[in-house]
């Protein structure tokens, strides 16, 4: 009797409601979180010591002009109404105009974002392809030299100021050794040679079949991407190690060994399979962190991405751009969190 009560067949009596409830819960959480995110940026914008009206019309405008813009911006309305207007604008993709570039902030972000995306993606790929095997090996050979190495890599990664490592990297690999190209995304001679399709230079040059551009773009991106990759590697390998240790100590691993399976099969088919979903969560988080970590890296490498955009705008007191960029990155954070949460729900047999 007990055998049947826990099978999927037993659950078929109430199939939709539970699923629907969960989804509705998720949607609500996302909505509240995003609204909160907007509220925080909105409030930051309000406490700014900069007068938004003056920022639009300049110092020499008349009082009449001032009042008109004041009303136009909705500043005469109560705070809650202003917030509603702000939310409505953002939902329509309108973050206002950038004072610095004179363009719509949304257009600016659409232009600079692919550069950051390309950098963070390559960085994460490097972090995953080195960090995961390193973490697995560290767990399997716990206490041996590879474990010590992973620990060292992690400690140094957690302690290193990223902007400084970038500078030293430039000094060594560009200045002294000359192995890679210097700051920027592309050498001057290669600018505009391939049509922009995805905005990712490596992909665009491949589509165009232009190898010289690809090589130049690669030579520019490899150093900053490796640095970012190192930071996500430190995090990913540490988490992989601790997940694997937990699994390798479980009883089903003994079962697998009792069956006479090879150690390789025990590790990868049994233990590793159990950490895959946890690992994807970690990787999603590492990816989100790299999008953020790229702020400092982009400054060092003069990389025209969203991090540089936010910082430059900030120093120019261009608040619309700063808040727009913050909202975009915050939204990606939330999206990645939800994504990994959903992965758990759908791919872990235990969660069904």
């Amino acid at each position: 009797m007990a055998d049947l009560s826990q099978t999927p067949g037993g659950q078929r009596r109430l199939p939709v409601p539970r699923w629907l409830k969960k989804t509705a819960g998720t949607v609500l959480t996302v909505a509240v979180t995003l609204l909160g995110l907007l509220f925080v940026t909105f409030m930051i914008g309000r406490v700014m010591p900069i007068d938004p009206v003056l920022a639009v019309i300049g110092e020499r405008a008349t009082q009449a002009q001032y009042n008109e813009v004041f009303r136009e911006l909705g500043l005469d309305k109560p705070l809650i109404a202003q917030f509603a207007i702000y939310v409505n604008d953002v939902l329509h993709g309108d973050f206002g105009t950038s004072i610095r570039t004179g363009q719509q902030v949304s257009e600016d972000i659409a232009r600079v974002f692919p550069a950051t995306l390309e950098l963070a993606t390559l960085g994460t790929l490097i972090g995953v392809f080195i960090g995961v095997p390193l973490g697995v090996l560290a767990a399997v050979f716990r206490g041996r030299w590879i474990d010590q190495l992973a620990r060292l890599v992690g400690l140094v990664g957690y302690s290193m100021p990223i902007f400084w490592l970038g500078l030293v990297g430039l000094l060594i690999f560009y200045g002294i050794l000359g192995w890679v190209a210097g700051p920027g995304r592309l050498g001057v001679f290669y600018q505009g040679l391939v049509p922009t399709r995805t905005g990712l230079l490596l992909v665009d040059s491949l589509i165009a079949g232009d190898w010289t551009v690809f090589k130049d773009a690669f030579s520019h991106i490899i150093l900053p991407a490796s640095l970012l990759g190192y930071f996500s590697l430190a995090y990913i390998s540490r988490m992989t190690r601790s997940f694997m240790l937990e699994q390798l100590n479980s009883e089903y691993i003994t079962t697998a060994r009792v069956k006479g399976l090879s150690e390789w099969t025990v590790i990868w088919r049994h233990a590793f399979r159990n950490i895959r979903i946890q690992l994807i969560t970690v990787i999603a988080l590492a990816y989100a962190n790299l999008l953020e970590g790229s702020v400092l890296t982009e400054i060092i490498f003069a990389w025209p991405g969203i991090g540089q955009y936010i910082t430059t705008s900030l120093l120019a007191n261009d608040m619309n751009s700063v808040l727009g960029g913050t909202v975009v990155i915050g939204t990606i954070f939330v999206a990645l969190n939800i994504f990994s949460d959903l992965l758990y729900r759908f791919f872990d047999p235990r969660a069904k």
Partner: protein
Amino acid sequence: MTSLLDVENLRVTFPTRSGSFEAVRGISFSLGRERLGIVGESGSGKSMTGRAILKLIRKPGIVTADRMQMGGTDLLTASEREMRRIRGRHASMIMQDPKFSLNPVMTVGSQITEALLTHEKLSRAEARKRAVAMLDAVAIRDPERVMSLYPHEVSGGMGQRIMIAMMLIPNPEILIADEPTSALDVSVQLQVLEIMDKLVTDRGMGLIFISHDLNLVSNFCDRILIMYAGRIVEVCQAGKLHEAKHPYTIGLLNSVPDLEHPRPRLDALQRDPAWREAPSVSALT
């Protein structure tokens, strides 16, 4: 009776910060095509004995013995590679709780066929057919459906029957059952034991049944080793348990209520430090 397994002077040692700790302290026994029970309280070294036979003691634990022979193989000198051929194929083990001993993210079917495919060259379809037949043999209804379930979708009793199927499918000669029913509901304990007992007897296997429950063991085994503090204190034929002489064995027997001879008060076990130091009794045949 031909011997399937001979163990002489087996020791399992764990180095600790304050010297080393001996979990098993020089025991000797042999196993024929019989059902051998090992009984003792927690920490008596009974589980360690089971794992030491398969050389599955985790580092930093160390296994030493004067002799450890399984069939034609000397387990002491066997390489890890040879051990892998022995595990599953010649000797298997069933562990306490199927909730933890089955891989949570693999289907029942793939876990069973994996055990088979490790030791025999078969097509997947053939392996699947054998697995279904094996599930049927452990009294699982609708085995085709169970094949595609995940371990959390089956009950404890069913999980343990799946475990038995998985461990017996490569046809080993020796089965070590380490507290196979302790984590199960009382209502299914007997059922699982009977299935295991039947399969072991039908196939003429040797069974090592590790438990803390002396009465249970005496019902299912031919011969019983009583372990205390890493040593064997007494060896008994199951039918002659009432002739047991060691005070520990008698204490174990008296600490369980008996319907036929009710006593006003159950005895609490009094432990004599001298038992710890007495030499291990040999259970070689």
